[in-house]
């Protein structure tokens, strides 16, 4: 004979909700409070390093969406390519990270930031200097453990819920 059937199940359930009522909520108030993202997040942007890029085009070949466009010219003197245009249509980008994994010279990184929505489609197409790393565009540790080490640990809960908008 199990007592769950005789009303104790209901009482147990009521106790669970009562405990939840008095304990701390587990949600966070998003725009004001932010959790630390995963150190290996594949954020909503691509970061490109002009110094390391050799213009080999491996990233463009790896991209399943064909979102990366590369225009190079040859520099005969140094026997290498000069990257004239490196253009990413982030509207097509699916944040798969294959370009980062494919790059033989570690010249492409996923971004650490996530709120990268734009008001116009043209703004989604980013070219050359717009793709460089900057304080506003930090680099994620995806496929680069040495970068991940320097980033803050991911948090799953915030300490104190703030009730009201500032």
């Amino acid at each position, binding site marked *: *004979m*199990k007592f769950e*059937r*005789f*009303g104790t199940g*209901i009482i147990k*359930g*009521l106790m*669970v*909700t*009562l405990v*939840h*009522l008095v*304990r701390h*909520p*587990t*949600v966070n*108030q998003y725009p004001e409070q932010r959790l630390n993202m995963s150190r290996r997040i594949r954020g909503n942007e691509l970061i490109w390093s002009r110094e390391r890029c050799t213009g080999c085009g491996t990233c463009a070949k790896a991209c399943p969406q064909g979102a990366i466009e590369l225009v190079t010219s040859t520099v005969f003197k140094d026997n290498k390519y000069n990257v004239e245009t490196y253009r990413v249509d982030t509207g097509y980008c699916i944040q798969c990270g294959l370009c980062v994994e494919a790059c033989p010279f570690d010249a492409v990184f996923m971004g650490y930031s996530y709120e990268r929505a734009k008001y116009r489609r043209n703004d989604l197409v980013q070219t050359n200097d717009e793709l460089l790393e900057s304080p506003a565009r930090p680099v994620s540790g995806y496929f680069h453990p040495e970068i991940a080490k320097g980033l803050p640990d991911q948090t799953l809960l915030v300490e104190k*819920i703030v*009730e*009201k*908008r500032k």
Partner: protein
Amino acid sequence: MKGLPPDWPGGYWWHWLFFTVVLIAFVLVMVLGAIYIERRGMGRMQSRLGPNRTGPFGLLQAVADAVKVLLKENIVPAKADKIVHWLAPIIAFAPVMMIFAVVPFQDGALLADLNIGILYIVAVSSIATVGVFMAGWGSSNKYSLLGAMRNVAAVVSYEIPLVLSVIGVVLVAGSLSLNDIVLAQDIPFILFQPLGFLLFFAAGCAEINRAPFDLMEADSELVAGFHTEYSGMKFAMFYLVEYAEAIAISAIIATLFLGGWRGPLLPPWLWLIVKIVIVFFVMVWTRATLPRVRIDQLMALAWKFLFPLALINLFITAVQVLVWPDGLPWALIFLNIAVMLVLVILWSKLFRLGWGRLEV
């Protein structure tokens, strides 16, 4: 008019006007409070915060919702029965307001001290179902009609245990007037009638379509049931009815079982409000805890569980009142609680919901 002070200026009509205005204001304010308690309380029970942006601690959320709903377009379906569709919210709302006419806020402080008060409540509260059915019928929508049909079936079934458990209280108090019932409660009747309270609470929740018996307006299966086709002001009326009914049932439970306005220190009307809020909180609590029942489970619970227990409760109460006609002794409290536990366990043994669970 018993509730009328002898020096009241203007007599009957002042009394009528005063209590009508006070009751309407009371119901509206309590509904706003109830919505806040329900949304915040349920939010915390589900480990979230609930509305907290509008005003201090989200207190104005209900006001903001009301303003939003009032500004919305009033859409009536092309094939709807226009008059029925238009009348339904009003017919659902009026009886809920009428219930409060007989709830005493203090000794004699009520709109009408009817000597058949509780019978009046039972009669009037059933009319709200007509409004709900009109809404379902007039909307020309199969889900609305289905929800309304379920509502009618549920209310017809749950009215019986509801009334039978009320009779127990009436027997102990010896009066149908709510004012006299409160005056008779030197010990709150929840102690003399624990089983009756349980039955009344369950049947009351089903009567006003609150979870876990809210399958007549189950948003996930019936897209909100009878008020699917309502928008704007008329939807606001139904929303108001939903919470006003919850407040009304809470007020009736507080009056019948918890001693109404009686209590130490605080003024009587405040005691009544405190008790209403407590009962309403228990409703929110059960809503946040229990999953919704199926329609066959709903009917089975009414007819196989609540109805026989209500009859037995009535019988036991009648015997007790016959044996001790001058007032029930203290010791009966323990006996009645023991009887309640035995009966609930016994009936749970006989009664299985859905036959779906195997005992291992």
